[in-house]
């Protein structure tokens, strides 16, 4: 192609992308070179056809689809939605039978465990010992109830073993009927001491106080009765 314009020069000349000096040179060459003019005409025809290519028309489907996809992308999914999507990726049951079977089995297991727990609770295995304990013959300094050790100090019983339960919250009280393990309130220890083992305190706010005779009062009445003594 010696003596003729390079294809790049012709193409760039067509696009007016040559610097002025090169453009003038190409123009001068083309004015007296029929071969290069023919090549330039060929390029011009190609470019003309490319320009005639119709602009792509955006399909209506795409017009609606992309914004919808973007909205899905933009919407933050809730935890439930993300969990559902993950479950669907992991397990897609072809029929509802396996899922229904699993749910029934889970329900049966739940009922069984619940009934077992109720039965165990009724048997007292999980409850705090709160029943009468016969007194051994003669004065006793220590009583073991379950895994808890109670020590008699003066006229009242106190839990001796230290655990998660505060000693002042659980006290064994000696009465004429026997030894009763009770739940007490803070500050009741002194009352127990003053009542000389005649106090029975129940769970909660209600305290039953036996002094000279059976009488019932709430915790507010304890001090009054103790004062009467």
């Amino acid at each position, binding site marked *: 192609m010696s003596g003729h314009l390079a294809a790049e020069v012709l193409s760039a000349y067509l696009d007016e992308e040559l610097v002025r000096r090169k453009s003038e040179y190409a123009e001068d060459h083309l004015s007296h070179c029929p071969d290069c003019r023919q090549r330039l005409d060929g390029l011009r025809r190609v470019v003309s056809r490319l320009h005639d290519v119709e602009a792509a028309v*955006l*399909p209506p489907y795409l017009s609606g689809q992309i914004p919808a996809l973007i909205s899905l992308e933009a919407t933050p999914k809730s935890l439930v939605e993300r969990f559902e999507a993950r479950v669907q990726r992991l397990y897609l049951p072809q029929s509802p039978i396996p899922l229904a079977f699993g749910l029934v089995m889970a329900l049966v297991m739940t009922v069984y465990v619940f009934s077992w727990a109720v039965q165990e609770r009724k048997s007292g295995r999980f409850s705090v010992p709160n029943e009468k304990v016969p007194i051994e013959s003669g004065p006793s300094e220590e009583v073991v109830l379950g895994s808890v050790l109670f020590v008699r100090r003066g006229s009242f019983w106190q839990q001796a073993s230290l655990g998660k339960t505060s000693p002042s919250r659980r006290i064994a009280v000696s009465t004429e009927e026997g030894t009763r393990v009770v739940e007490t309130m803070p500050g009741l220890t002194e009352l127990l001491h003053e009542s000389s083992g005649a106090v029975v305190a129940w769970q909660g706010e209600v305290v039953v106080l036996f002094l000279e005779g059976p009488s019932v009062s709430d915790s507010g009445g304890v001090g009054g009765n103790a004062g009467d003594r």
Partner: protein
Amino acid sequence: MAASEAIATVLPGSSDVELADRHRYGDEAAFEEVYERFAPMVYGLCLRMSGDATRAQDLSQDVFLRIFRSLGRFGGRSTLSTWIYTVTLNHCRSRLGRRRLRTESLELETGERAIEDPCRGPEDLTLARDTGKVVGEALLHLPTRFREAVVLRDIEGLTYAEIASVLSVRVGTVRSRIARGREQLRVLLEGEAP
């Protein structure tokens, strides 16, 4: 030159960086504006690169998802249109890969075979010479790097400098690719050297 007009329509309205900032801070209208401006351009480029309308739709969806995810990181080092051209072409390259694009013969509406072999005589091409479809099919027979350059120049209407920015090559490389692509196209369409 429809593409030039499309680019010109980008100029008014929000600036590119402002659009990106609005998108970054959650303004949904910003992305809608980008979509309205560039959807035809992206789809057209995907169509020219893939040669298949259905595939072009899939590519366009993916491209806009990419744009949506990364528009906030657009820093304004180029125009937004240049950046979107780059994103689109990169995605087309990665999705289309080295797979030979539509090597099956071109079936014109008349049933004539126009381009199956670049060495076929010009008489076959004459049957559909005036149809843009033939030119579009001929483009698919160009190597990807030439096709990109020719499409950006002669269909999208970008300058050599803009094409160089989109393709991340020098202007001299752009000039060479356009010239070689046009020459191959001329041979495909007219069948003989001048």
